[in-house]
């Protein structure tokens, strides 16, 4: 078998794995159950909550991530390597462990003080946002750092020799040139936050019509052996995810040709 055939076969096998999983949903796909689930008040609540919390979590991750990623990309400072390493923490530690760490934090005196005097995170919508934010922050900073790395430093130096202050150079040169990467980081963070489950269930629990995001709704439906309802919710989540990926692709393409 030629190299081309062998590698293409491997690529198609990857498609077969995920395609097969999606196709298997068809066995339990029930059109009336699908319509009923997708139009139910509970489903609409879960959808709305997921879209909103993921949007806030992704926006916060990008807002914090832009300056952090810029610093990691442009400066060498004490603790640089440590920060760089900790970005992978959400990848190597399971989301459930991350959620548990948040719970432990709020059980500490300082965390308890925040709960009482600032925002109530545990078993609340704020907890959903926090769990999603913590899960996606590392990945977002990593993606943003890559975006800044791709903008040559030389351009900032040139901008400054032309009279721009450092912040003006970043604003007028670096950020516009990194915008493709920033948009991609935001959409991918949003899509990942949308599907976040492990940390969310630890911090916010599984309270129907209160902290019930789409992944938690899937878990609850499956727990009550409602397979057609589960399939409907999975299809909804997959649809949104694929839409986000396609949107990212189109945005990147549009910016590249601009």
């Amino acid at each position, binding site marked *: 078998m030629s190299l081309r055939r062998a590698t293409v076969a491997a690529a198609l096998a990857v498609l077969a794995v995920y395609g097969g999983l999606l196709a298997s949903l068809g066995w339990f796909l029930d059109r009336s159950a699908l319509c009923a689930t997708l139009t139910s008040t509970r489903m609409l609540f879960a959808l709305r909550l997921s879209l909103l919390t993921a949007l806030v979590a992704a926006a916060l991750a990008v807002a914090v991530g832009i300056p952090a990623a810029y610093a990691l990309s442009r400066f060498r400072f004490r603790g640089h390597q440590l920060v760089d390493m900790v970005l992978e923490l959400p990848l190597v530690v399971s989301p459930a462990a991350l959620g548990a760490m948040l719970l432990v934090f709020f059980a500490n005196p300082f965390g308890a003080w925040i709960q009482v005097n600032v925002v109530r995170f545990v078993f609340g919508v704020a907890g959903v946002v926090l769990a999603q934010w913590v899960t996606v922050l590392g990945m977002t900073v990593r993606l943003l750092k890559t975006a800044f790395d791709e903008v040559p430093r030389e*351009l900032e130096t040139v901008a400054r020799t032309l009279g721009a202050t450092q912040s*003006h150079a970043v604003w007028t040169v670096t950020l516009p040139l990194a915008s493709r990467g920033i948009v991609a980081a935001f959409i991918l963070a949003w899509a990942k936050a949308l599907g976040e489950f492990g940390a969310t269930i630890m911090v916010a629990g599984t309270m129907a019509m209160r902290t019930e995001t789409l992944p938690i709704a899937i878990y609850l439906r499956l727990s009550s052996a409602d397979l057609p309802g589960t399939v409907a919710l999975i299809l909804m989540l997959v649809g949104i995810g694929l839409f986000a990926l396609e949107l990212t692709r189109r945005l990147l393409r549009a910016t590249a040709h601009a």
Partner: protein
Amino acid sequence: MLEVDALRVSAGRFRLHDVSLSVGRGECHAVLGPSGAGKSTLLAAILGVLVPETGRIRLAGADITTLPIERRGLGYVPQQLGLFPHLTVRENLVYSARARRIPAARFEPVLERLVAATGIGALLERSPRTLSGGERQRVGLVRALASQPQAVLLDEPFAALDEALRRDLWWLLRALRRDWELTILLVTHDLAEAYMLADRMTVLLDGRVAQQGDRMEIYTRPAMPDVARFLGVETLEAGRVVAAQDDLVTVEVGSARLTALGPVALGAEVLVSIRGEDVALSRTGGAGGSARNRLLARVVSLREGSPLRCVELDAGFPLYALVTRPASEELALRPGAVVTAVIKAPAVHLIPRRSG
């Protein structure tokens, strides 16, 4: 105008040692050196990207050593990646005016003159991505000059271009320099570029100034063997001074003896440096003329070059001559041919060699 005084800078493991140089108003000073010699580190320190450990940088009398990049009054044209790809050429050119909030009435006339002088009028609405290498560098030059800096730093600005384009841009830069009285610090590893554009030169080797001075002085009289090698001196052979009288010395090189200008102490060990174009070849013995050195030599090999052909000779020591193609054909030069190599005494440059 631009003075660098005993600058010491570290960049990672590399260190620049006590570099001093001075560029007068309207002068072009080239910093020459091979890769890794410290040219870019020096430039980065002058620009303000790297902070020097010691030393001062002055521009028009003002100490700019600790000033931020944007307040130094320096223009900068990098080798590549200089234009902002998300802006049009026009937006690139007016960037400095916007950044410094200079009114259009003050900025536009200068820009118009520069655009006309460089012939980039037709490019103004284009994206830098669509420009050729030569067009990009023209725009880069205009953008740097439009910000009206007191001195311009050029970092191998034409290195990525082909030969013909490079020569065009050299002429353009010479014209701009003359018309705008530009003060230029040019960093390059290209000898031809440095000789074409610069009045004075600094040769950097291993982070130190190896030689500094007038370009012709450096070209004809390299101070150190390493400088001679870097400058591509064709003949560089060890010799010993065997006679000295007044300002003339006789040097023994291989089995030959050469007359050179002194004063050099009797018995001194030297490196004999002779430029290939200073060696004239003759089939007739080169009688007449004032040249003191006439060596009978046998042609060992001929190497094609552009534009000159390099002739390797055995004159009692390996000697190299550069001749034009017509001259080479007229002399019927081929391996084994016997010729007379004629060299004037001032063309035989002696570089002191450390004993042992």
